[in-house]
């Protein structure tokens, strides 16, 4: 298992300036904000489960930009139906990363059901081009490199540990600021 903040850091190291990064509600957005705030990040402050659908729309609309969808197992489980839709639409520029700590950590660490359910099988059944499952930094690095080598949709499932990092601030940008900064990054790719 990889500490989640480390997994997020490694993912952000692979992000190119033109890439779009979407992060789900709760601690994941806060950790992305702290690790690498940038205009091309969309912090989904609410609407748990909506991220992958929004990412799909953005990937279809902007095929020239890579779209990273960064969510947890709880968020992925909530919107399982979006996975076959992503497979069906097949955007080559979508990189779907699930940080699976088998828990709802943002609300106190209540267990999710992903300890007994392998989310990569949904992506395999849905027809993602590549599906990787890893629990260490080397595996994550090579999965990210694999994503850069060919078209997606790609899924990377990272088994992450629950290591609460104290004192992580909330995203300080207002929702409309997040929208407007992100909007300028989408257009920058055109």
């Amino acid at each position: 298992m990889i500490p989640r903040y480390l997994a997020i850091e490694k993912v952000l190291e692979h992000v190119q300036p033109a890439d779009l990064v979407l992060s789900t509600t709760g601690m994941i957005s806060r950790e992305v904000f702290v690790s690498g705030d940038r205009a091309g990040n969309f912090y989904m402050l609410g609407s748990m489960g909506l991220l992958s659908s929004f990412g799909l729309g953005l990937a279809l609309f902007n095929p020239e930009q890579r779209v990273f969808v960064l969510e947890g197992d709880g968020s992925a489980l909530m919107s399982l139906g979006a996975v076959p839709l992503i497979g069906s639409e097949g955007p080559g520029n979508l990189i779907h990363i699930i940080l699976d700590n088998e828990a709802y950590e943002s609300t106190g660490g209540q267990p999710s059901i992903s300890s007994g359910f392998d989310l990569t099988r949904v992506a395999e059944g849905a027809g993602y081009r590549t599906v990787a499952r890893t629990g260490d930094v080397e595996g994550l690095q090579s999965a990210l490199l694999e994503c850069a080598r060919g078209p997606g949709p790609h899924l990377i499932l990272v088994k992450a540990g629950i290591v609460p990092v104290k004192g992580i601030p909330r995203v300080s940008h207002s929702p409309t600021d997040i929208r407007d900064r992100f909007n300028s990054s989408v257009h920058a790719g055109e």
Partner: protein
Amino acid sequence: MKAQAFWEVLKQRGLTFFSGVPDSTFHEVYNAMAGVPEIRYVPAVREDVALGVASAAYFSGQLGGVILQNSGIGNLVNPLTSFSLMYKIPVLLLIGWRGYGGPPNDAPEHWIMGVKTPEILDLLGIPYEILEPDNMEPALDRLLTNIREQSVPGALLVRAGMVD
């Protein structure tokens, strides 16, 4: 009105990107879609998924559309309140208004939502217009003005038989 004209009115206003979950109100609308090559449609699995997909259009300077039955409004309450209204990311909701007028119209499963549909939209602060046989252009233009001025989602309510 005819389904072809329905698409024509939308297309003329730059609306070409749609996602949704079908409703029988839009049976002919879906049939006519094949004849309008400009339309891009993503067949969503739930209404919230459709809203997530369609909202992406905003970031390319366009307005996305979501097609749904009014029973699907329930699946939109969270994404509307904590996404669309919070970030002020508009979409056009094309809602099949099943159970209009309440019982005995339509099937029992539509009776409650049939009556509550306008109330729920009012409660959420979603502007809406009601499609009549001859008002699509003025109704849609009023709605689009509202949507653009407030930067919020807006709904066009479509009763059975309005588009054939």
